[in-house]
């Protein structure tokens, strides 16, 4: 029927047509979180997540196929089998573990606050003073992240603004709509390097994941619950990759520091 032909043509026209073959690992990633995960106008993914993904694929002798997806939609999409795994700087948390499985943690986030240099938070060096100082302030975070849950739990009096993308959050930070932004330091570095970042700085307090359970237990690869075989393979592969330093090297390249975390 003509309708079928038309819809087929439109589907093909609008979309990349890599078909799911055997020996292929499809990886869901955000594509809008530099330097972890960046997608260019053509849809090619680069960044630390892309490197980790590619390293895994080589180790597992499979072909990599990246699927770009909004961050808060990654877990539902994984459960719906849109892709096999999630590699997108996703922290392992109890809440998330109820929905999907995670590999062993392979990296550690350094969560920090970004504020204007003129802010009264700028000089704070200790976590308690920081939490007190954040009282009632307008804080920007990304929807569905551990950072969002941390602020909700630890600074309930704050005026929390959630953004779909890091970019939009940073645009609002630059224009003064939020007084502080909370996210992973490596992702926020990017902002400081840009011209609009020159009036901003980090608050010198690293909020480690062990400080509060909302911040999770390190970065892991998200895997669907029933995929136990794949999980075992990925766990072994990740441990090897951390041990032989490949993840550490990639981390140095993108973050200028080694955030890899050993398996045991």
């Amino acid at each position, binding site marked *: 029927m003509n*309708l*079928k032909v*038309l*819809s*087929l043509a*439109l*589907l*093909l*026209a*609008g*979309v*990349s*047509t*890599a*078909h*799911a073959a055997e020996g292929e690992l*499809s990886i869901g990633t955000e594509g*809008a979180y530099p330097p972890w995960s960046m997608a260019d*106008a053509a*849809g090619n993914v680069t960044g630390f997540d892309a490197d980790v993904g590619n390293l895994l694929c080589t180790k597992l002798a499979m072909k990599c196929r990246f*699927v*770009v*997806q*909004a961050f808060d*939609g990654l877990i*539902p*999409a994984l459960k*719906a*089998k*849109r892709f096999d795994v999630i590699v997108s700087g996703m922290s392992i948390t109890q809440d998330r573990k109820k929905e999907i499985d995670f590999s062993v943690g392979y990296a550690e986030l350094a969560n920090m606050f970004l504020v204007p240099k003129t802010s009264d938070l700028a000089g704070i060096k200790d976590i308690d003073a920081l939490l007190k100082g954040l009282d009632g302030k307008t804080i920007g975070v990304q929807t569905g992240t551990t950072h969002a849950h941390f602020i909700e739990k630890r600074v309930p009096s704050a005026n929390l603004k959630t953004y*779909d*993308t890091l*970019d*939009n959050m940073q*645009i609002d930070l*630059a224009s003064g709509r939020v007084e502080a932004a909370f996210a992973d330091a490596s992702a926020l570095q990017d902002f400081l390097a*840009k011209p*609009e970042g020159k009036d901003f700085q980090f608050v010198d307090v690293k909020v480690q994941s062990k400080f509060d359970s909302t911040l999770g237990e390190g970065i892991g690869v998200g895997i669907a619950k029933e995929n136990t075989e794949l999980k075992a393979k990925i766990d072994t592969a990740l441990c090897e990759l951390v041990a032989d330093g490949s993840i550490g090297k990639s981390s140095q390249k993108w973050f200028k520091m080694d955030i890899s975390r050993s398996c045991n």
Partner: protein
Amino acid sequence: MLTTPVADKAWEFAAELRANLMDASLILVWQGGWIRAILQGAAITIAVGTVSMIAGALIGTLCGVIKWARIFPLTLVVDAYTSLVRGVPELLIIYLLFFSSVQFVTQVATAFGYAALADSGYAFIIAIVAIGTISGAYSTEVIRGALASIPPGHIEAARALGIPGRRIFRRIIIPQMLRIAIPGMNNVWQTTIKDTALVSVVGLQELMRTASVGAGSTRNPLIFYLIAAAVYFAITLISQAGFDRIERLVGLRSRK
């Protein structure tokens, strides 16, 4: 030069606006990649809009007939459908479909034989299902209204002449319905094409999302959203002109 303080401010504002846009345009020109991306996004927008509109028109015709002919209990189902779509924000419907009914989508795609494509065309399919569903509800009302405006005398006369029911439908009802429905369908199309912008939230690389990505990436939202608005406006104007033409061709302006 005007010298009142208000005019001064206005001048200052205009100058800054111009500086912003010129700066950004330079970036755009040098990195022509964005212009291409925007055009591709526009193509996807039109594709989603068109397919959804066609799907919606089919749904609308079916449901509109059901509602007009008052076929119980199907009428209740159709009523529930249109009330739901017209009463719940489109954004919610899109989020709902995107996050939950994936099995349904994969099944639909497989039924059409495109299982493999379903993986990569996922966002596109969700977009069409969502916008098509919404478009269908509005189309239903248009078709029902069109059917109701056919003078009942025509149908009575046809019956009196002994013309069989199906032929009445095909030769008398459908042609008139199609003609009367055109202005209404024009409105549905305009709404549909604008609703496609909402699909940007599920990540489909259509016009709005491309503009968003560009805005975030170059930190210049003003120029990107202005361009997006201009492209949508162009699509609207062109389709409006097209529909006007069709209306004239079909002789709607003339006395029936």
